[in-house]
C-alpha cells in the first residue's frame, strides 16, 4: 500500500480505508447506529438499478419501471490520520442483493442488527454473510418497550453457530456501538486465525 508520495513540499496523507457493513431489516436502526459513531452526519449515496443491473432481481408487476434507486447511508470514522473506517448501511430490501455483492467485496466484517420483535427480518442477512464467509456478529438493538431476551434465546432463534457473537446494544449510544464494532473486528481476527489454521493443518 502506497502511503503518500515523495513530492516537494508536504505530501498529503493518503489514508488506508476499510469498511464494515451494517445490515438488518427495515427500520431496525442501521442509520441510527452509523450516526452514533460517525464523525460526519450519515451521508446518502445512490445508484440506479437499471436493466443491465438486475440479473437476480424480480421486477414482476413493475415491468414498466426501468430504473429504481438504491440508497445506502454511510458514515466515516477517522481512526488515525492514515486509517479511515467507513460504515455502510446495506439497502434493506432483498431485491438489492446485487448492491450487497459490491458492498461486501473487501469488507472487514458486518453487523447484523436485530430487533427481537421481528427477528425474522434479519434471517436474510445472516444467511447472506454465512454463505459469503464474511465475519459477522449479531447486534440486538434493545429498543425501549421491547422484551429483553437472553442472548442464548436469540442465538437459538437464529440458529447461529456457537462462534458467532451476539451482543446486546443500543444503536443510539456511541459507546455501545463502539463496543459492537470492536466485537466485529475482534471476530474478524479470530475468524482469520481459524481459517489460517485450517489451511495449514
Amino acid at each position: 500500500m502506497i502511503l503518500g508520495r515523495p513530492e516537494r513540499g508536504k505530501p498529503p496523507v493518503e489514508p488506508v480505508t476499510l469498511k464494515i457493513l451494517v445490515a438488518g431489516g427495515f427500520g431496525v436502526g442501521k442509520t441510527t447506529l452509523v450516526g452514533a459513531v460517525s464523525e460526519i452526519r450519515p451521508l446518502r449515496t445512490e445508484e440506479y438499478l437499471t436493466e443491465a443491473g438486475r440479473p437476480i432481481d424480480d421486477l414482476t408487476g413493475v415491468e414498466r419501471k426501468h430504473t429504481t434507486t438504491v440508497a445506502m447511508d454511510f458514515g466515516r470514522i477517522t481512526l488515525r490520520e492514515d486509517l479511515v473506517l467507513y460504515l455502510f448501511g446495506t439497502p434493506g430490501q432483498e431485491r438489492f442483493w446485487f448492491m450487497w455483492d459490491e458492498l461486501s467485496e473487501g469488507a472487514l466484517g458486518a453487523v447484523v442488527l436485530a430487533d427481537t420483535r421481528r427477528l425474522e427480518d434479519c434471517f436474510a442477512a445472516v444467511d447472506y454473510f454465512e454463505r459469503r464467509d464474511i465475519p459477522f456478529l449479531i447486534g440486538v438493538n434493545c429498543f425501549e418497550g421491547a422484551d429483553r431476551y437472553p442472548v442464548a434465546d436469540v442465538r437459538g432463534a437464529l440458529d447461529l453457530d456457537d462462534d458467532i457473537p451476539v451482543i446486546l446494544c443500543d444503536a443510539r449510544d456511541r459507546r455501545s456501538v463502539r463496543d459492537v464494532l470492536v466485537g466485529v473486528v475482534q471476530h474478524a481476527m479470530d475468524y482469520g486465525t481459524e481459517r489460517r489454521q485450517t489451511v495449514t493443518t
Partner: protein
Amino acid sequence: MSTDGQGSSHWFDDEAGPVVRPYAMTRGRTTSAVQHRLDLIALVVAEPHADEAEADPSLSPEHVHIVDLCREAPQSVAELSAGLDLPIGVVRVLVGDLVDTEYVHVNRPVPPAELVDVSILRDVINGLRAL
C-alpha cells in the same frame, strides 16, 4: 419557471427531479477504463497540478467540482457521490476521466487478502477503543 400562485400542481426544486439526466454528464458512458479499480471506499486524491483543472475546457463543471473537493482532502467514491448528489456509477465515470487526464489518482482500499492481517485489525481495534 412559473410562479403564478397555483403551484400545488407544479413541481419545484428537488421534487421536479433532476434537470439533467444523470448519465448525460458522462455523455452516456456507463463505464470507464479504470472503473474496475473504483471501490466505494477507494480514495480519490488530487495531483499537485489539480488547480489547473478549472481552466481546462475539456472538463465539465462536475469534473471540476470533484477536483475541488479532492483538493481539500482525499475523498472516497461514496463521499463524492453524496457530495455531488450523483449516482455512484456517474461518479465512477467522471473520476475515470480525471485519472486519464492525470488531475487525480486513486488509492485502492486494503485488498481482501490483507484484511486478515492481524496488525491492521489490531490498529482498527485500538482506534475504535480510543473513540
